[in-house]
C-alpha cells in the first residue's frame, strides 16, 4: 500500500475503491450512450417502416411522382450495382491479396502498395464520385451508367477486400505451405489447393463486408450512374439506374409531400439489405472459427 501513503489526502478526495466505482460507472454510462442511439435508430426505422412493406411495395414501379406504388427499380438497381461491383472487385481484390500474402517481399515497392491501399481506404466517397465522373463517364465515355458506377464502387471497395483477403491468407499456418511444397506441389498449386480453401471463409467475409459498404453508398454514384427516376428497369450496363440509397436521398429531400410510410419503408429495405449482409458475414466467420482445426 505504498502509493497511498505518499498521497496527501484532501478532505474531498475519494478512496481508490470509490474512484474505481465512479470511473467504471462513467465508462458504463458512456458505452450505453454510444449503443443506445444506434439500437434506437434501427428499432425506430423498423417499427415505422414495417407497415409500408408489402408485396406491391417490393415489386411494383413507382407511381404519382414516386408518392405511391413500389420501389422495384431502386431495389433492382442496387442489386445490379452490387453484381457489377462484385465482378470487378472480387477477382482483382483476391489476386492482390494473394500477391501481398504469398509473393511480395518486404521492399520499397511493397511498402508503396501498402501506403496506396491505406490511401484508397481513406479517399472520401464523394471524391470517388468525382474520379468516376472524370475517368469512366467522361474520359472512357461510358456515360452515366451502371458500368461507370460499378467501376467506381469497385475501386472504393478494393482496399477492404484486399486487406481482409491478405489477413485471411496470412492466418493460415506456415506449416501448410511447407507441406504443400514438400509433397511436390508448385507454389501456385499449394496456394490454390491448400491455402485458398483454408482461407476461404475469411475471404468471403471480407468480400461481403466490402460489398455491403458499396451497396449503402450514395456519393460515388451521384454523378456516375444514379438517376432520379426511371419509367422502366435498366436493360443494359450502359443504362443509368435508380438505386436504394440515392432514392432515399431523393424522396427525403427533393420530393415535397412524400408520404412518410414510403420513406420509412424504403429506408427499412436498404437497412435490411445491408444488415442482412452483415449478419451473413458474421455467421460465416463464427462457423469457420468453430470448425477450424488449427
Amino acid at each position, binding site marked *: 500500500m505504498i502509493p497511498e501513503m505518499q498521497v496527501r489526502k484532501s478532505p474531498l478526495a475519494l478512496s481508490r475503491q470509490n474512484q474505481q466505482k465512479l470511473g467504471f460507472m462513467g465508462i458504463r454510462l458512456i458505452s450505453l450512450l454510444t449503443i443506445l442511439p444506434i439500437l434506437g435508430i434501427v428499432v425506430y426505422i423498423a417499427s415505422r417502416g414495417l407497415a409500408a412493406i408489402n408485396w406491391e411495395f417490393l415489386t411494383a414501379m413507382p407511381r404519382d411522382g414516386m408518392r405511391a406504388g413500389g420501389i422495384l427499380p431502386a431495389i433492382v438497381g442496387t442489386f445490379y450495382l452490387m453484381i457489377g461491383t462484385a465482378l470487378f472487385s472480387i477477382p482483382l481484390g483476391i489476386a492482390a491479396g494473394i500477391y501481398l500474402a504469398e509473393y511480395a517481399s518486404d521492399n520499397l515497392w511493397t511498402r508503396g502498395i501498402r501506403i496506396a491501399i491505406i490511401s484508397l481506404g481513406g479517399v*472520401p466517397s464523394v471524391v470517388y*464520385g468525382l474520379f468516376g465522373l*472524370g475517368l469512366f463517364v*467522361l474520359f472512357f465515355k461510358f456515360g452515366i451508367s451502371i458500368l461507370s458506377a460499378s467501376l467506381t464502387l469497385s475501386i472504393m471497395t478494393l482496399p477492404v477486400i484486399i486487406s481482409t483477403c491478405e489477413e485471411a491468407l496470412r492466418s493460415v499456418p506456415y506449416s501448410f505451405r511447407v507441406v504443400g511444397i514438400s509433397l511436390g506441389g508448385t507454389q501456385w498449386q499449394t496456394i490454390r489447393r491448400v491455402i485458398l480453401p483454408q482461407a476461404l471463409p475469411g475471404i468471403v467475409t471480407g468480400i461481403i463486408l466490402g460489398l455491403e459498404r458499396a451497396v449503402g453508398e450514395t456519393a460515388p454514384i451521384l454523378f456516375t450512374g444514379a438517376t432520379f427516376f426511371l419509367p422502366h428497369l435498366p436493360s443494359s450496363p450502359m443504362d443509368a439506374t435508380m438505386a436504394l440509397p440515392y432514392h432515399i436521398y431523393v424522396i427525403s429531400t427533393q420530393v415535397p409531400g412524400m408520404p412518410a410510410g414510403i*420513406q420509412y419503408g424504403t429506408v427499412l429495405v436498404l437497412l435490411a439489405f445491408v*444488415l442482412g449482409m452483415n449478419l451473413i458475414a458474421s455467421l460465416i466467420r463464427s462457423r469457420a472459427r468453430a470448425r477450424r482445426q488449427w
Partner: protein
Amino acid sequence: MKSSERILTHAIRIAGSSSILFVLLIFVFLVREGLPALGEVSLSDLFSTRWYPIEDLYGILPLISGSLVVTLSSILFALPLGVGTAIYIGEIAPQKVKEILKPAVEIMAGIPSVVLGFIGIQALSPFLRVFLNLPTGLTALSGSILLALIAIPSIVSIAEDALYAVPGSYRDAAYALGATQWQTIWGVVLPAARSGLLTAVMLGVGRSLGETMAVMMVTGNASTLFAGLDSLIMPVRTMTATIASEMGEVASGSVHYHVLFFIGILLFIFSLIINVSSSSFQVKSKQEKGQVTS
C-alpha cells in the same frame, strides 16, 4: 513451371500493384479536371470568403471552415464516447456483455450514411429545433452529431486494438504495485496505448471530413464562415456537401465545374495526409513496444 501457371503468377503480380495505379489515376484525373480552376479564378478570389457561384464568386474559405467546424465538433462527441466504449469492451465488460456490444458496434458501422441523414431530417433536427429553440434544426450541430455516430465505430475498433496490444505484463506490474484496476487503466494502459489511440482519433477525423450524404442532408448548406460558438447552431456548408449538391447541375468544363474538382483535390490531399500519417504512427508504436518488452 507450366506456362499457364507463369501467366497466372504474372497476373497476380500485376493485380498486386493495381492499388498504386488507382491512387495515381485518382490524383491525375482530379488534377486534370481541377487544376484549370487556378487559371480561371485568381488565388485571392479562390481563397476569399464568399461562395456564390451564380455570381461567379468562388471563395472556398467558408466551405473549408464549414468542414472544419463540423469535423472537429463531431470529434468532441466521438472521442470520449468511442474511447470510453473501447475501454469498456476491452478492459471492463464481462464476456456476455462484450458479445452483445461488439456486434452492436459493427451494426453501427454498417448503417449507410444516407440512412443517418434521413433520421437526422426526421428526428434529430426537429428535436434540436424545439430543444434549443432555434429557427431551423438544420445546423452544424446536427451534422456533427451524425458524424460522431459515423466516426465512433472506427474509433472503437482501432482503440480496442490499441488497448489489446498493451502487453499483459504492464497490467500485472501495476497490480503488483497495489494499483486498482481503474488506476491501472487510467495510469498505465491508456498512456501505453496513446499512439494507437491517436491513430484512432485521426482516422475518425478522416472519416468525418470525407463524409458527404449525412452532412449534406442535415446542415442546411448555407456557406458561412466560423464566427464564434454560435456558428454551431447555425446552418453550415461543407466541402463534400458542396461537391455533391452542385456537381449534378454544372456544365462539364465550366469554371464552376473546375472549382468543384479543385475542392476535390483539397479533400484528397487532406485525407491522404491524415491516413498515411496515422498509419505511420501505428508502425512506430509497434516498434517502440518491441523495444520496451525485449
